[in-house]
């Protein structure tokens, strides 16, 4: 295999010295982490490397020599460099060389056989691969390569040679802690040697995060304890809470906030990203909610909305009444059964009349209620949207009732019809065997059964028409609520922090690497530049998506049509923990 030497671009202009890094024998590659400059005492260098090895569990050793010179080397320097190979023995021993001010590099790797058999040492072809140390240190590979547990820095698996390079650089932070202003015994060159990177704001935030998290965690635990108290578990209240999507959304947000402000540190980068995404999502939500609130108050929209609400509800009720009058007549030219038509029509009209009375009773309090509800927008835009969805559900409650009445009636009719149709053909449903069996009926059973069948068949168009009309209305309301819920889910689950990171610091989220061949001269080693290939946006969203409330329609189109045909009630979304009806 060709030998590969990963060399950091920051050391390309450093003075001559020793190459320090890690040798990966399975990949035949040497990852150079830093350059130790002359003068140095070999014992101190060995001590430093032992310290770093203990702190970072990475097998850091001296790999070879680095020579950055002005003209042709003198003989003494050549011997000196080779003598170093005897002090820090490493197989293979790399000798990198660069002429100052030019782009020509030379690289040799020798297998040091011993001082006597100098002529028998072999030289191998070496490929130089340059990498940006800071970017490789900070980036995370996706999917994260699972490297096995290591003992003293050796990896036994062939898990991606490049994942090993990233891992080596990421774990060797201990080596990069000293810069050139430190008065240590050994002078190193690496990406932080011009000065260790730090930010005052980040340090202050870290220092302040402890007490703030503790305080907020206590507050949130108080709120969760209050909401879990027994008063709210009594039957009418618990039923209402489970049906309102606002409560679901508030519970979801409370869970997220508890996770963000918990005092336990994140165990791995994925959890840290999740926390950051949740925090940004909550902040954006609150910001949008406050914007909505200020817009509502500026134009006094709440007052206008309250004034418009009663006339709108009246208008909807009037339209429904017109619809029922139309159904009671000859809708679309169809001839209805007069008696049943009148009964159903009058029943529904009375229902609408009751509903209008209730709305008029509530009208003095509407503005107050709306004002308080509008205040809840400062908890977030998602909460405001959930409240809107709940208000729509409450205002169209009569449509829901009509749909249930129509569906039940239709369902009963369909079941009766199917059973009597079997009787008509002389068959019966065998409950024990769960199949249709033939059966001999008495004459009077057949007579009554056929009569009832005929009655039901002739009443079918009326019931079916009422069912159709109210189902369409109900589906319309469900579609509107569904769109609102879709928007809420989008705000809840979009990983904005990850998307922002991908936009501003694309090297942090790496899908892989890419290579570029640098200027090549014959006789010189091949030089490649390794750059980070950032993750595409679709994969960022897919990997870091936050979990939502989970209220998604669980039916396929086929089962939905089947339910509609047989008159079974449709619940478009199920809250968590609801029983099937």
């Amino acid at each position: 295999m060709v030998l590969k030497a990963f060399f950091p671009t920051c050391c390309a202009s450093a003075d001559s010295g020793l190459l320090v890094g890690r040798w990966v024998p399975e990949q035949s590659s040497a990852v150079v982490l830093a350059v130790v400059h002359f003068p140095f005492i070999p014992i101190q260098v060995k001590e430093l490397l032992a310290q770093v090895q203990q702190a970072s569990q990475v097998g850091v050793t001296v790999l070879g020599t680095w020579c950055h010179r002005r003209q042709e080397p003198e003989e003494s320097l050549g011997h000196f460099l080779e003598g170093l190979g005897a002090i820090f023995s490493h197989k293979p021993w790399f000798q990198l060389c660069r002429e100052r001010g030019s782009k020509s590099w030379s690289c040799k790797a020798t297998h040091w056989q011993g001082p006597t058999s100098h002529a028998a040492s072999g030289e191998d072809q070496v490929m130089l691969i340059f990498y940006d140390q800071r970017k490789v240190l900070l980036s995370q590979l996706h999917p994260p390569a699972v490297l096995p547990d290591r003992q003293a820095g050796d990896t036994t698996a062939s898990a991606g040679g490049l994942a090993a390079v990233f891992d080596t650089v990421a774990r060797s932070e201990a080596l990069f802690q000293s810069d050139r202003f430190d008065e240590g015994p050994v002078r190193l060159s690496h990406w932080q040697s011009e000065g260790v990177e730090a930010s005052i704001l980040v340090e202050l935030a870290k220092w302040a995060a402890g007490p703030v998290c503790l305080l907020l965690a206590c507050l949130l635990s108080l709120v969760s304890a209050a909401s879990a108290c027994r008063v709210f578990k009594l039957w009418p209240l618990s039923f209402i809470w489970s049906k309102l999507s606002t409560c679901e959304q508030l519970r979801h947000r409370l869970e997220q906030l508890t996770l963000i402000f918990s005092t336990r540190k994140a165990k791995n980068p994925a959890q840290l990203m999740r926390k950051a995404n949740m925090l940004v999502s909550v902040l954006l939500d609150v910001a949008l909610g406050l914007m909505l609130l200020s817009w509502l108050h500026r134009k006094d929209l709440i007052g206008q909305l309250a004034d418009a609400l009663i006339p709108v509800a009246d208008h909807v009720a009037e339209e429904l009444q017109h619809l029922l009058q139309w159904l009671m007549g000859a809708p679309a030219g169809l001839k209805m059964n007069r008696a049943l038509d009148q009964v159903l029509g009058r029943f529904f009209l009375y229902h609408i009349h009751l509903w209008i009375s209730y709305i008029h009773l509530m009208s003095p309090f509407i503005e107050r209620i709306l004002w308080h509800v509008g205040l809840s927008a400062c908890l977030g835009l998602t909460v405001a949207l959930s409240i809107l969805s709940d208000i729509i559900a409450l205002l169209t409650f009569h449509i829901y009732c009509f749909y249930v009445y129509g569906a039940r009636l239709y369902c009963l009719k369909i079941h009766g019809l199917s059973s009597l149709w079997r009787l008509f053909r002389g068959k019966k449903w065998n409950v024990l065997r769960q199949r249709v069996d033939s059966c001999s009926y008495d004459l009077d059973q057949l007579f009554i059964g056929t009569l009832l069948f005929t009655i039901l068949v002739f009443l079918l168009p009326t019931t079916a028409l009422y069912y159709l009309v109210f189902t369409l209305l109900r589906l319309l309301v469900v579609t509107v609520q569904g769109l609102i819920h879709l928007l809420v889910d989008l705000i809840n689950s979009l990983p904005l922090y990850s998307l922002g990171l991908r936009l501003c610091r694309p090297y942090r989220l790496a899908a892989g690497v890419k290579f570029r061949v640098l200027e090549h001269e014959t006789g010189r080693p091949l030089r490649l530049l390794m750059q980070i290939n950032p993750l595409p946006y679709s994969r960022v969203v897919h990997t870091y998506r936050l979990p939502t409330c989970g209220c998604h329609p669980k039916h396929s189109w086929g089962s939905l049509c089947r339910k509609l045909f047989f008159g079974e009630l449709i619940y478009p979304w199920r809250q968590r923990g609801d029983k099937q009806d």
Partner: protein
Amino acid sequence: MEDEQSFSDICGGRLALQRRCYSPSCLEFCLSCPRITLRSLTAVTCTVWLAAYGLFTLCENSMILSAAIFITLLGLLGYLHFVKIDHETLLIIDSLGIQMTSSYASGKESTTFIEMGEVKDVVINEAIYMQKVIYYLCILLKDPVEPHGISQVVPLFQGGRRQDHLCIQQKVSLGDGGILASSGRQK
């Protein structure tokens, strides 16, 4: 050393294959796809604008014409940035891996790198397209779970979709087969 040959794809467009050898362990193949022609561009623009003008005479709304201009511009930009591939490059580095780069007409480059440890083999697959059989190169990737299984088949040079690689397969497979064989022997 460089080497260039030209071929034609099954639709008659001109393809050019360029081969560069940087060193005994590094080889690059560059396939240039047929360029976008002025004739097709003019045809599409004229069709869109005639349709828009027809709608305008029906509806008497001048927004339709502005909308048609926007659609044409955005459509052209989208086509150049996301669809039209200018040239594709295959870079094979001994014992490191295989890199495929697609350069789009707007200058965007999208790169995929497959490490040598994941490559099982490079094969030529047959596919039936309309009434003929076309051949294309693809890379077989190893399955991490099953040692003899294949986890994925990655086709190469997908830019001009209906390219027939039969004429260029020999050059590419001879070139990279050598590197793959040598790295396989060393493992």
